[in-house]
């Protein structure tokens, strides 16, 4: 890919001693840190699993088909994210903007599904933040994941808006790559949450 208008490493002030881009390395370290964040939240959920004194339990409320659909959306959005980066590295800015928009829309759909899920749990199943330990730990864990997805959607849409105004081209591929790292991480965390919380009885 070296001949596709990618800046030469030796002249790029963002490339450091290790040959990695500062921003990319910073993102990896942030993701390591975020693992501990989600690890603590998942640990809390597991510590309180089955300890609720009242209220509906996980499998009284879960709508596995809907959440599976959400999970599939998020996984598919990782593919479009990869396609967006590939398109940008080949300087196909319009295609990149298209794939980024698709990624953001799937993320948005995921978040809206989650909003619907929370609403139906609260209204129809009587599970609120303050109902039980399950309600508390479920909403806080999945809610923070949803907040991560929302942040990612905003980030992607801002990049799309730059692309539409002609402010992004192949030289800026690292910005999309770093956003992509974040996006894939949020996906992977969802695989862990979906498995541990929704699928394991």
């Amino acid at each position: 890919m070296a001949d596709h208008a990618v800046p030469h490493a030796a002249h790029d002030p963002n490339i450091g001693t290790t040959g990695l881009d500062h921003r990319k390395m910073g993102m990896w370290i942030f993701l390591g840190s975020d693992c501990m964040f989600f690890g603590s939240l998942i640990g809390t959920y597991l510590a309180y699993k089955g300890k609720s004194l009242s209220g509906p339990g996980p499998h009284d409320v879960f709508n596995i088909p809907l959440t599976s659909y959400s999970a599939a959306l998020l996984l598919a959005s990782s593919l479009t994210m990869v396609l967006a980066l590939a398109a940008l590295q080949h300087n196909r800015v319009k295609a990149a903007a298209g794939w980024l928009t698709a990624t953001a829309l799937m993320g948005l759909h995921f978040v809206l599904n989650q909003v619907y899920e929370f609403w139906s749990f609260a209204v129809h199943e009587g599970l609120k933040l303050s109902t039980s330990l399950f309600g508390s730990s479920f909403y806080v864990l999945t809610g923070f994941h949803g907040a991560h997805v929302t942040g990612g959607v905003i980030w992607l849409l801002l990049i799309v808006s730059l692309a539409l105004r002609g402010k992004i081209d192949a030289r800026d591929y690292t910005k999309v790559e770093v956003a992509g790292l974040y996006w894939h991480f949020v996906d992977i965390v969802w695989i862990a949450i979906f498995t541990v919380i929704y699928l394991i009885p």
Partner: protein
Amino acid sequence: MATQAAFMPGAQAKEQGVLWSWLTTVDHKRIGILYGSTAFIFFLIGGIEALIMRLQLARPDNTLVSAQTFNELFTMHGTTMVFLAIMPMSAAFFNFMIPLMIGARDVAFPRLNALSYWIFLSGGLFLNASWLFGMAPDGGWFGYANLTSAQFSPAHSIDFWMLGLQILGVSSMLAGFNFIVTILNMRAPGMTLMRMPVFIWMSLVTQFLLVLAFPAITVALILLMFDRFFGTLFYLPSAGGDPLLWQHLFWIFGHPEVYILILPAMGIVSEVLPTFARKPLFGAPVVIYSGIMIGFFGFGVWSHHMFSVGMGPVADSAFSIATMLIAVPTGVKILNWISTLWGGSIRFSTALYFSLGFIAMFTMGGLSGVMHASPPVDLQQTDTYFVVAHFHYVLFGGSIFGLFSGAYYWWPKITGRLLDEGLGKLHFWLMMIGFNVTFFPQHFLGLIGMPRRIYTYAPDLGWNFWNMVSTIGAFVIALSFVVFIYNVIKTTRTGQVAGPDPWDGRTLEWSIPSPPPVYNFARVPTVHERDDFWLGKYGDGHGGKPRGAPAPVTAAELAAIHMPPPSYWPILLAIALSIMVTGIMISAYQIIVGGLLTLFLMYKFAMEYHRPPEGHGH
């Protein structure tokens, strides 16, 4: 042109006004000075809180302060010293020294560095603003659940603490990301990992601890925030919640935090001793490996803070063994430091005095630490003044002695003038004597049963004498810092000009003028070995010849240097973030407005250098 003006602090100041140039600075050296001076002010505030407590405890049945005020004093003293004094004093050295010691012109993300400082400042001010509202936090520095629940602490005091720590956590983590990338990715050519100065290594381990440990307390605080504001049940025993969840999450952060506080001091001592013994650090790679091992083990010992909650024999044994194990790499380091001095041609400077003080005091604190690594012993000592004595020996006798060793060592590099050695030694002896008079008797007090956190005691318990001694010692410590401040004021005006290399140093920071120019290195150095600057001056003693003075820097080389211009987005972003977070105590609208403002400013921040010209800064 802005980039040109950034070269010359004088010209820049004239152009923009001194205050504006500091508010918008992205220069790691200025940010280091901001960190250091802010932290020192918070250190004095925390010290005054300690003095009031010692006055209250000087005599039995004393009525200087109420029980409530006493609770606030010890909570704020602990929180201030950990988060607003020792950590940012270390951050001051990280900021100023890391780029200089690895041969870089700045950190990897200069504006992010400024952002870390401004968020730290707003967190510190916010936490201390609680005094003005008469609602200082009163739940202890580790704020155990469920004392902090809305039921038992309905006032905003806990909110100040909880939100203040979250703000400070953001600052620390941003700084952590920045310094890890800086150390790994900004090293001068030839500066391989094992050629890095030991201070840089200890800083690197510290940053990894920061970014991996802070998420745990962030989650603990978020759960507390949801309990207090949104009706969740995490720490509510009546709903099946377990207050021990807080303790686990807090100490998973809290024990690595102990090493976050001590490793920078260990790094400083590892620089000071070789310089003043005029010998390489004995077994430098082993000191580095030991530091890494301490970092790893630091995550596996947290429950030794919780022996008294009854975790059962298996957990107790495991954490007890892990805790004793962590003493091994620590002991290795102490041995290496002593061996560094062995046979050296020692110059007894103030910096060396403080490093020697560090070794002696930290060893004592470490020994009492090994004592309560054993659960049966810990059950006797926990929550007594013995523990207070222990952690002051490691945090004051360790961290503070180490940090002041660094202050005397690097002061000439930072300011261009030497501190007065006579006053420095007076400072050392007053601090050393005052410290031991204050804290050694607390071992006795703890062993004869005096609990922590009591605001007064009956006269017939046998605690009167040692409490009075301890209070007298505290004022000797205070006097020592008066001497330090006098030293600073005096030498700022009339201090001896240091020159680039006043200590005959070994590492790269001594190869450039004091104070360093904005760009640090006119020509980025090439490194061939550990202690490269020293070997360049004297040869390696095995036939390697000293390298002569480098060719003078040409005007063309200077003109090719590009430094990032100042930026006002970091301070604005820090303000917006504070508006958002404090909104939780005031109104939901403030959260929304602050949140949108934060988002907007993050966008502006990101877009400021969206497209830097080829070859320019970040």
